[in-house]
């Protein structure tokens, strides 16, 4: 981490959020159930469709006294691009995750963000599926 070289912090914590867009396909389908049961549970979401997902990743850090920054922003955005935008854009998410409900996806995305963004401290991930619904996972 580049900022560590410059050590001292102000002891004031801030949370920085970056947002990115992921256009991907999914369908709500539990592979352990029959098509009929899936249709009954998930209605029209059972059909393959897509979203412009809005992914919001929040990290917390102490504001560095010299740089005024709470994290390495380039590292943060590079990881998000590599691990989310590049990996999931244009993909059928059901080929990657067993269940692609917003609730499951937001937790899976949190786990990825937490692991790949180390040593940054990820405190939450938000996932906007449509303008009308939003999922939040706090770790």
């Amino acid at each position, binding site marked *: 981490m*580049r900022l560590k070289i410059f050590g001292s912090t102000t002891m004031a914590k*801030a949370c920085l959020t970056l*947002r990115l867009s992921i256009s991907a396909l999914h369908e709500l389908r539990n592979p352990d159930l029959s098509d009929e049961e899936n249709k009954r549970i998930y209605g029209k979401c059972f059909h393959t469709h897509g979203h412009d997902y809005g992914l919001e990743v929040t990290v917390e850090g102490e*504001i560095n006294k*010299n*740089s005024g*920054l*709470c994290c390495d922003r380039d590292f943060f955005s590079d990881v998000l691009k590599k691990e989310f935008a590049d990996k999931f854009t244009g993909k059928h998410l059901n080929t990657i995750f067993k269940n692609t409900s917003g609730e499951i996806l937001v937790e899976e995305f949190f786990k990825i963000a937490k692991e790949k963004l180390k040593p940054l401290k990820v405190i939450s991930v938000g996932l906007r599926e449509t303008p009308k619904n939003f999922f939040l996972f706090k770790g």
Partner: protein
Amino acid sequence: MTYLSRRITFSSAHRYFQKKFSEAENKKIFGKCYNEHGHGHNYVLEMTVGGSVDPLSGMVINLVEVDQILKTVTDPLDHHHLNFDVPEFSKIVPTTENIAKYCFEKIKDLLPREVNLEKVRLYEAEDLWVDYNG
């Protein structure tokens, strides 16, 4: 406890530059934000206060008062170059983090005692924002 959030926008120029760093260090840490003349943003400042609802007015705090506070805090920033025109940022870098902290502290000083400043959120862009709560 009931929470109320209100926004205001302001437009400012800033440059990420720390004189304690060498030119190479400034470039490495701040990248494009180190450009000689800096750059600008349409900032959106959102403050959230928490308090009990007054039984007579039905309000946590009067929005007229909130708007006055937000205007008082952001007027010195709006249409200014933060590095040169705001004394606080002559010594510290006007990063989104530091501007959020600055706004939080100024708003807190102006708010009536009975309401609590829960946090400020400062949007530098639609895809980047900072939350600060003291």
